[in-house]
């Protein structure tokens, strides 16, 4: 889609010119550790913002571009074409935090955080899941007790991506332990440099330290850091989570396109009909995924999206697993070798490691609402099938 619009074409060329002049070359060689990768991304974010190409989807009054959806899609395509660094480590801040603040934050909260995010000075993580609240997120039990102008927080979060490098956290806490579980949750912004916080990275199956456990002992959060009203957090976090299934998916699809192109080259090298068939079938599916995403985003822009985004999630995550499984066989034992740790942090582009792409893809069917939960959503909210009998138990 969008290929024939002359205005868009002019926009594309302007951005391409910017990338040609400014995108760092050979940065992958220097991305040898999470820390160096972070600095490469930070520097690139600042270059983008200085050039007027930062935070494409943010409104202009907060320093964004106010870009249309089509323009965002074009920019993603050009990023992939130029091999520009991703800004994945700022993704939570640029996407989830901004969406949440713009819809539910106070003007003070926006002005405190959005400019620093644009400067690359704030890295954010998400503190939603808990050991006892994964798919059943509303069962979360990290407690926040009001004490004058503060909340005192005790409990534990898990699967907080990048918490070990983050400055701030989007946190869900329980403020009413008596109410039906999703009615006693509050959404707060937590300064991770506060006393009483312990962050322990979890070594993932990739070998990297991407996810973290976060422990809270009498952590003080000012009430002014609350988003929305007390006990309204469940509703607000749906907005935060929904961003994961919107334009946020554009780079994911670009990565799949890159993988698909590489698979095409592998199939040519192998030269058998079977390999050609496999590559063609994945080319077909990735092309369909890309079209489905564009059409879903356009519908969303016209206010007609909804739980259909679950269809996208189920499809892209499993397609990625199927595609990389097939690629592992095409590549052979080379794909069984490990890859530099820093690759994990640039998951927007295909880095040449099928192993990493393959194992990463399991995070996609589990994180952000497992595919089993997504299929329940499709069955119940899209198709209208009856719910499974579910006891609405209180938390304790």
């Amino acid at each position, binding site marked *: 889609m969008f*290929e024939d619009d002359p205005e868009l074409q002019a926009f594309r060329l302007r951005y391409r010119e910017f990338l040609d002049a400014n995108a760092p070359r050979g940065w992958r060689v220097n991305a040898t550790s999470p820390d160096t990768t972070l600095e490469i991304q930070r520097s690139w974010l600042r270059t983008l913002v200085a050039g007027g190409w930062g935070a494409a989807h943010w409104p202009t009054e907060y320093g964004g571009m106010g870009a249309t959806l089509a323009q965002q899609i074009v920019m993603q395509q050009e990023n992939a074409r130029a091999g520009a660094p991703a800004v994945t480590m700022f993704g939570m801040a640029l996407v989830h935090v901004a969406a949440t603040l713009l819809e539910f934050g106070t003007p003070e909260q926006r002005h405190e955080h959005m400019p620093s995010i644009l400067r690359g000075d704030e890295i954010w993580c998400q503190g939603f899941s808990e050991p006892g609240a994964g798919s059943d997120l509303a069962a979360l039990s990290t407690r926040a007790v009001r004490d004058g102008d503060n909340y005192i927080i005790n409990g534990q979060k898990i699967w907080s991506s990048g918490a070990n490098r983050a400055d701030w956290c989007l946190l869900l806490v329980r403020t009413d332990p008596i109410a039906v579980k999703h009615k006693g949750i509050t959404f707060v912004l937590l300064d991770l440099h506060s006393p009483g916080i312990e962050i322990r990275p979890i070594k993932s199956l990739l070998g990297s330290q991407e996810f973290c456990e976060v422990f809270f002992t009498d952590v003080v959060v000012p009430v002014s850091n609350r988003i929305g009203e007390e006990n309204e957090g469940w509703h607000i976090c749906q907005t935060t989570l929904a961003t994961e299934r919107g334009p946020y998916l554009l780079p994911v699809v670009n990565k799949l396109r890159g993988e698909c192109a590489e698979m095409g080259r592998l199939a040519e090298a192998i030269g058998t009909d079977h390999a050609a068939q496999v*590559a063609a*079938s994945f080319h*077909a599916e990735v*092309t*369909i995924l890309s079209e489905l995403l564009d059409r879903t985003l356009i519908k969303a822009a016209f206010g007609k999206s909804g739980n259909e985004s679950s269809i996208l999630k189920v499809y892209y995550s499993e397609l990625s697993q199927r595609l990389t499984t097939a690629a592992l066989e095409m590549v052979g034992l080379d794909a069984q070798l490990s890859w530099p740790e820093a690759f994990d942090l640039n998951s927007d582009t295909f880095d040449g490691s099928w192993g990493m792409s393959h194992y990463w893809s399991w995070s996609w069917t589990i994180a952000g609402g497992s595919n089993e939960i997504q*299929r329940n959503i499709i*069955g119940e909210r899209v198709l209208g*099938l009856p719910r499974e009998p579910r006891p609405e138990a209180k938390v304790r």
Partner: protein
Amino acid sequence: MGPNDELAEELRASARKALDDRMPTTVLRQVIDTEDGIDRSLYALAADLGWLGLTLPESVGGSGGSWHELAVVLEEIGRALAPLPMIASVVVAAGAVMLAGDDEQQQRLIPGIADGSAIATGALFGASGRPDEPLAARVERRDGSLVLSGVSGFVPDAHVSSWMVVAATDGAVPTLVVVDSSAPGVRIERLDTTDVTRRLAHVHFDDVVIPSANVLASADAQHVIDELVRRAGVAIALDSVGGLERVVEITVAYVGEREQFGRKVGSFQAVKHHCANLLVFSETARVAGRAAADAIDGARWVEWAAIAKSYSGDTYTEATRIAVQCFGGVGFTWEYDIHFYMKRARLSQQLFGSPTYHRQLLTRELRSRTAD
């Protein structure tokens, strides 16, 4: 939604109403038991509603519309399982004459297709009916006239056709000729298909004399045949999109009513997730089919046509497997409608080239792009 979409949605509403009224599956069950297996009065209505001439030029009795609109009609036909020879007559036969015929041939043959007074088909392949196997019909010049002999296999709707476009070899190269279905030497051997909503026939040619006016003037008949395979493939894909949509609806309705263990079976995750998978298939196939219809004649037409045909064939087939499973025992009966979709899916998957064949075309297209 642009004005284009509004027009398409109006067309969809009217097509859905016409087919709901005239071809509910209770009527379909009567039609499939008739000798010809098509509903001629519904075909006449299709002509009145402008479906047949939708993409044909105004100069030959059509309305000069786009595939964006034809797609809607084809989806609705697939949804209703309507036994209408539209793909054979409009997409293939009229398509061949529009692509390869001269002005006289177009003026003579197309208005009858557009107004429904004639039904035509295309006999484009060899005895196996597969586009990747050699033609088994040939033309020779004998005593100053052109004579057709041999066979074309698995020709859709040949039994109700008044003429057909036949692909035959002329020496080493293919050619396209128009053959009167009732001409001496033409024998139409009707076949019993498992998909009772469509009819196929082997067509045998025994020294059929072809008037020179019936040779379609085209420099490169193979290009025309390839294009007809793409168009028929996309038409089948759109038929499948409509079928998939209906399969999701009737399966969800059934599992939302059927009770076991004191619960609707659709409340069980195992069944609910089957239904979610059906919707994923349906939505992705729809995107492929519509993107292909919108891509016609554009830079990505060849790519999208191959994607739509291969993907819809595989997903419709797999979705109907799952759907029958969701229906359980009654899914295995003739009484419930789901088996009609299951069989239409399987014939659709193979007709006008299998998914494997279309993926070969896709590979060739991508390769030629890399070479550019």
